[in-house]
């Protein structure tokens, strides 16, 4: 850290000669008890992709069951459990921790030129809480699953015979995991920025993570107390949500959505941060409208707390309440559109490289636009009465969460994969699978918009004959989607063993994480930085020898050499 200290390794200063974080410490325990943010990020990555696989299997079972009306492969009760488990696993185990805990953990300190997050022990605790929460969820699946839908609405969730307590305790614990990650990121961004990196010189991914962290810290406790009350309701009968004991079941909905609506912004904000990074790098242009993108993240985080009532337009809220919530819901469209227009303006007259990450950016822009605009249909009171609880809602939600968050996650994963593991994946297979995912996704969910607007209710085991073609098209789409993911898993795993070694900066990005080797050494950097503009792509040039990008003036952002110890 200090200038005059030689490297403790005794090696010449220079990251290339240092041991990478992947080989620093051997054995499973050196991973499970590591305080290194990079290893914790990788463990999270393995954990959440496993959850994604599990949730995906449930989804395929649901879609297969809907190939025909009436029983296809399972009973109606099993079907109820399958869609509940799909939702609960995808939401609580995969998509909420997804980008912040896996990619964010790895990238955030590197982007700050720092050695670690501010509170490494808390970071490990967060991962362990995730594991314990996941165990509770899996136990619930084994001992009887849950058939309430992922929203756990009372009074059904307090009366059903399925394993609700185990699942909700699991989600309760996962909530603390999420809080700890968010808290850690806020402290790290406040206290560990390098010299020269003012708030408005931060990479926009950090603005995304920061606004996400605010929501994680402020909203998740409410979910915690709600689920605790639900557990107490089932275990002791406290009756706060039970009308037969004088309680109020709609209060549960208020509590639940007071967290769970902000939670969808926990899912989308870091995704928007990734897109902001990628769109600039792969367009070869400085990001357009930096401050607007940064502020719109904060604006979305603030609005997110004021719109929960739009989930209860048909739950007996008063007319005036509905109108207020509807108006506030529309206002979320403003910062979202600000982002989309700025991304488009960044691409305008850029030299766009259609590498795999950029294909995901284009997918994102297309799908998120549809997902966002259909949200306005649901925020409008009169159309929502018609569309409430139909496949239209399901399709909207998946266009935003899958078309938005998952697609951005995949883009980020491909973008940072060389940095994480030091290997390049097959670009051709990457493009093929990106195309399959895009086509499969649209086939699966666009059909659901059509079905929903024709009145197909969500969560139904059966359907009338008229919907057969669309349901079958949707199911086939889900198979195409699955094929795309299997190909992706194949070439990514292949790259770990046979991939070309990655250069330090394969894409020509100007953020600090590309200033160290791929994969980074245990202590991340051998320099202290005087950070400049994170989107000054002109300061880089392509170096054919390493097949990567290097700075024209390597000393321009260096504050002090040394310090890798």
């Amino acid at each position, binding site marked *: 850290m200090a200038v005059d200290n030689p490297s403790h390794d005794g090696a010449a200063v220079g990251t290339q000669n240092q041991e990478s974080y992947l080989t620093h410490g051997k054995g499973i325990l050196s991973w499970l008890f590591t305080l290194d943010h990079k290893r914790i990020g990788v463990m999270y990555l393995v954990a959440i992709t496993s959850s994604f696989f599990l949730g995906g299997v449930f989804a395929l079972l649901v879609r297969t069951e809907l190939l025909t009306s009436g029983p296809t492969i399972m009973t109606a009760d099993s079907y109820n459990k399958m869609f509940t488990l799909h939702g609960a696993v995808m939401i609580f185990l995969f998509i909420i921790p997804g980008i912040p805990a896996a990619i964010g953990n790895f990238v955030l300190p590197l982007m700050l030129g720092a050695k*670690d997050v501010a509170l490494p022990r808390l970071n490990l605790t967060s991962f362990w809480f995730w594991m314990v929460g996941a165990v509770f969820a899996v136990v619930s699946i084994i001992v009887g699953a849950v058939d309430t839908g992922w929203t756990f609405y009372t009074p059904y969730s307090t009366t059903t015979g399925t394993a609700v307590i185990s699942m909700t305790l699991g989600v309760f614990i996962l909530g603390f995991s999420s809080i700890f990650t968010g808290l850690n990121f806020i402290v790290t961004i406040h*206290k560990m920025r390098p010299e020269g990196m003012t708030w408005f010189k931060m990479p926009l991914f950090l603005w995304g993570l920061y606004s996400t962290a605010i929501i994680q810290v402020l909203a998740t406790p*409410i979910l915690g107390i709600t689920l605790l009350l639900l557990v107490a309701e089932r275990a002791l009968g*406290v*009756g*706060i949500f039970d009308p037969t004991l*004088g309680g109020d079941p709609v209060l549960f909905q208020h509590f639940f959505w007071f967290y769970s609506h902000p939670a969808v912004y926990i899912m989308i904000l870091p995704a928007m941060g990734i897109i902001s990074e990628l769109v600039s790098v792969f367009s070869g242009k400085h990001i357009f409208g930096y401050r607007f993108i940064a502020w719109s993240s904060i604006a979305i985080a603030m609005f997110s707390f004021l719109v929960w009532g739009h989930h209860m337009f048909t739950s*007996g809220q008063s007319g005036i309440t509905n109108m207020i919530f509807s108006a506030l819901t529309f206002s979320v469209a403003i910062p979202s559109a600000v982002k989309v227009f700025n991304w488009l303006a960044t691409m305008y007259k850029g030299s766009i490289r259609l590498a795999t990450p950029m294909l995901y950016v284009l997918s994102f822009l297309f799908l998120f636009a549809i997902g966002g605009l259909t949200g306005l249909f649901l925020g409008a009171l009169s159309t929502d009465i018609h569309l409430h609880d139909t496949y239209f809602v399901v399709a909207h939600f998946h266009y935003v969460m899958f078309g938005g968050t998952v697609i951005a996650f995949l883009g980020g994963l491909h973008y940072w994969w060389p940095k994480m593991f030091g290997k390049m994946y097959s670009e051709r297979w990457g493009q093929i699978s990106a195309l399959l995912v895009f086509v499969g996704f649209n086939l699966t969910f666009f059909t659901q918009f059509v079905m929903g607007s024709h009145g197909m209710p969500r969560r139904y085991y059966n359907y009338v004959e008229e919907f057969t073609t669309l349901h079958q098209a949707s199911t086939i789409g889900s198979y195409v989607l699955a094929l795309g993911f299997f190909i992706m898993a194949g070439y990514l795993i292949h790259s770990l063993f046979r991939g070309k070694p990655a250069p330090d900066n394969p894409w020509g990005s100007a953020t600090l994480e590309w200033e160290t080797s791929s994969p980074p050494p245990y202590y991340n950097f051998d320099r202290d930085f005087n950070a400049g503009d994170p989107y000054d792509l002109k300061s880089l040039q392509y170096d054919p020898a390493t097949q990567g990008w290097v700075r024209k003036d390597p000393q321009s952002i260096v504050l*002090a050499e040394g310090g890798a110890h």
Partner: protein
Amino acid sequence: MAAQHHDDDHDPNLAHHFESTEQQRQSAKLGMWLFLATEILFFGGLFVAYTVYRGNHPEVFVFGAHFLDTALGALNTVVLIFSSFTIAWAVRAAQLKQIKLLKWLIIATMLCAFAFLGVKYVEYSAKWKHGLLWAGAYDPHVEHEEAFETIEVEGELHTPEADVEIIEIEEIQPVAEGEIVEPVVAEVEIDPAPVVADPDSSTIAPAARGPEGLAGPVEEADHDLVPVEPLNARVFFSIYFMMTGLHGIHVLGGIAAMLWLLKCLRRGDFDGGHFTKVDMVALYWHVVDIIWIYLFLLLYLID
């Protein structure tokens, strides 16, 4: 920024990823404040539930609060405020490296925490004995004569929706711990005028509204009468047990944190004037204290 902190390189209390002890202390402190914000929001859910139910059914809370022992609640409030003082003094002692004093102040705070839980145990067991439990287990009953007392209703009952259908109470009403003389007969004036809907009230009829034609505003209640139990009085005890129970768990957490401080003290962590750990626990303890003050006001003193 690296060069000026050369001296910190050999400080065993400085983690490798920080530039300076000051940066480390600031990070810990910001993290703790954020954590405390989540704690307050965690309780916030229960405070919202309290507000919603009290807004809809004020009579339930006025009734339920009679069964809480204000004297014991006040005693606990004093105990906790005193413990806040001792832990604040402990931070000061840690800053001044008064290790021996620090040890005794931590122990004193811990004893206060145990005293608080002891008093809470007395209160809970009295509730348990009389079946004054959360809604699902609510079963008010009388086992010993001395367990009853006549409740003095101070002032007037202004609850327009109080259930007054029972004029003569044959059975003994459940009352708080203490003593009683004999079965009490409640006499309430009945205003035969029909209930006039309150324009400000929720469109959903409150569950505690009495049958039409019988219910009416209680103009004045005699001072020696037992308040008649409103419908769903049990909800009060659900909220009481959830709030005080969750708070009690946090007191246990505080005891654990102070045991950890004593372990750190024994290891010599505080010898160099490193008071951050004591500071963190103290902040947590103050929040536990503040939450109790609100619980005391909102549950015990609403008559």
